[in-house]
């Protein structure tokens, strides 16, 4: 459990981060979202003390981060940044093994861990271990960057706009990968982004920052249906709110018995996908399949009824 307790950062009398208090449960993804200058990155960097807080403190599993020397603290906390920050002169293996090397792990343990992580990120260890960052694609570089941050099995993984430099298609794959790996490893992740779509898509909880203050800290569904301030509503985008909400609800929640024409949707698809399929092909209902077997259908009326619950 990460407890952030009235943490404040002041530059020349201006509060970049103003008395933020929040608690992050172990094994969850928390997204900090805000516009540039909202203090979201400063907040993140105070957790591993890349910025020293002006006041307040952070406790990881009850222990204050101020009790450890900063560089020792950082070796326990994974850190991944935009533009990956890989060492251009080290091979992929040495990049991933950087923190274990700092922690003086034995060589064979490091190389086993490197291979394990590469496999986890769907990169063949034999093919990639000895390559240099410049020989990888943007998506691969980003995956190595996240693998490096996870290498020493840190208590917490901090990510600062990790997908910012990727193009939209690779970005959504990277987000899926992150979700999958987080669920597999049970890691605790705090991720900073300016992209509300990313926040809603990835976050178990979303923290919205504005002018250094934490204005709302809630689940994605709450953020969309009950924005706490006008700013949060703006970030969500009033017009798109219903669609965003639908994108959070899986079709399995409103599936009903019956048949429908045309191609089926998987049970994991969202109501937004179902709506799009209906509108695009002119149907009033689409079949839903689970493991290739049709289990029922979703109708336009059911989608409308579900959306109106929040209106």
């Amino acid at each position, binding site marked *: 459990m990460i407890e952030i307790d009235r943490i404040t950062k002041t530059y020349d009398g201006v509060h970049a981060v103003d008395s933020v208090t929040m608690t992050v449960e172990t094994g969850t993804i928390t997204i900090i979202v805000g516009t540039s200058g909202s203090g979201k990155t400063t907040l993140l960097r105070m957790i591993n003390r890349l910025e020293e807080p002006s006041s307040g403190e952070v406790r990881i599993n009850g222990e204050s981060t101020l009790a450890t020397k900063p560089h020792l603290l*950082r070796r326990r906390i994974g850190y991944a940044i935009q533009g990956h*920050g890989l060492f251009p002169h080290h091979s992929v293996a040495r990049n991933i093994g*950087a923190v274990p090397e700092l922690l003086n792990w034995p060589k064979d343990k490091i190389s086993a861990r490197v291979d394990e992580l590469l496999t986890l990120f769907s990169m063949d260890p034999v093919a990639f271990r000895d390559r240099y960052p410049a020989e990888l694609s943007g998506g691969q570089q980003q995956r190595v960057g996240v693998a*490096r941050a996870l290498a020493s099995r840190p208590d917490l993984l901090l990510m600062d706009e990790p997908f910012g430099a990727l193009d939209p298609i690779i970005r959504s794959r990277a987000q899926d990968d992150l979700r999958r790996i987080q669920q597999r490893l049970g890691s605790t992740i705090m991720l900073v982004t300016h992209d509300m779509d990313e926040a809603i898509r990835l976050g178990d909880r979303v923290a919205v920052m504005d002018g250094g203050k934490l204005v709302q800290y809630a689940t994605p569904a709450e953020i969309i249906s009950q924005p706490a301030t006008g700013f949060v509503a703006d970030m969500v985008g009033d017009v798109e709110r219903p669609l965003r909400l639908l994108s959070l609800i899986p079709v399995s929640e409103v599936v009903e018995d019956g048949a429908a024409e045309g191609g089926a949707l998987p049970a994991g698809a969202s109501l937004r996908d179902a709506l799009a399929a209906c509108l695009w092909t002119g149907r009033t209902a689409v079949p839903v399949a689970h493991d290739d077997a049709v289990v029922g259908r979703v109708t336009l009326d059911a989608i409308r009824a579900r959306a109106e619950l929040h209106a």
Partner: protein
Amino acid sequence: MTVAANRIVAGEGVTVLALAGAEVTLPGLVAILVGLTLGLPGAWPQLRLVGAIVGLAGLLWLLTHGASALLDGAGDYARVSPAVGFWCLLLIFMLLMADALANLAPGPLARGTLLAAVLAAAGIILWSGALSELSILQEYASRKAAFANAALRHLALALGSLATAAAVGFPLGILCHRRADLRETTLPVLSFLQTIPSLAMFGLMIPILGWVGNTLPGAQAIGIAGIGFAPAFLALVLYSLLPVVGNTVAGLASAPPAALEAARGMGMTPRQRLLRVELPLGLPVILTGVRIVLVQNIGLAVIAGLIGGGGFGTFVFQGLNQTAADLILLGALPTVALALVSAIVMDILVDLTRPTPKGGA
């Protein structure tokens, strides 16, 4: 070619054709023509390389055979030296060779082997005595001991000042990298020093070191005096500081900011960041600074000859005083050769320290 009755008077020109019988000149001329035809059209660098080598061989042939033919029957003091035509052809072939090599872009190891081969070839040719009748080598023969001495002194000046500048400059560069205020005061002072013309710098060192030598007890005993080695050495060290410090700062700053941020974020101490990230990434730039200093100092050390600092400059300035062109060449050619060789060696080193394979996507 020119022949002269002795080494001071101007020689009279002799064209290639009048040099000797056709059986001697023909192979050389043919080789030069073949070399030019192969080398000048620039389609294939391999061909250009071969052309350059054939052409150089032709020149060498003419030089060795022509010299002995001309000296036959001339007086004891007669001197033979190659004339403008030879130097121009030599320059053209060397350029062709350099260009061909630049296009072929051989790896660092291949270049090292090639350099060693060229040096060995040059050494064998000089050693064999085939050229010993040329005036510049006659000049050399008459002052072998002085030449060896000058060579050692020249190297001591150039390399010693480089080592001193490095010993001072690297730590200073690292400090400047860390602290912006130090950087902003140090670099302008160093570039100011670099601006002072070399002769003036050497000159200004004389009264300063003379004063130190006369006032500090013991200073004279370790060789600090107004004239000679010490002022030349100190002037060279001062000139070397800017490239060393400037390139150290630039090299350390060349590490990508994201990589440094990541290094800090993963818990590296400042020392670990310097040793594991900044230095390895900056090494090529830092070594480029060393290359600049080395080439520059080999050239500037010539001026030490003027203030009794020794080195090849002694021959150059003696030659200038006596208007003896061969003596000037005896000083200038080794300097140029030394500068070229050290530039190539340093380039190879820079390539070897490049942290990532070249040409990666």
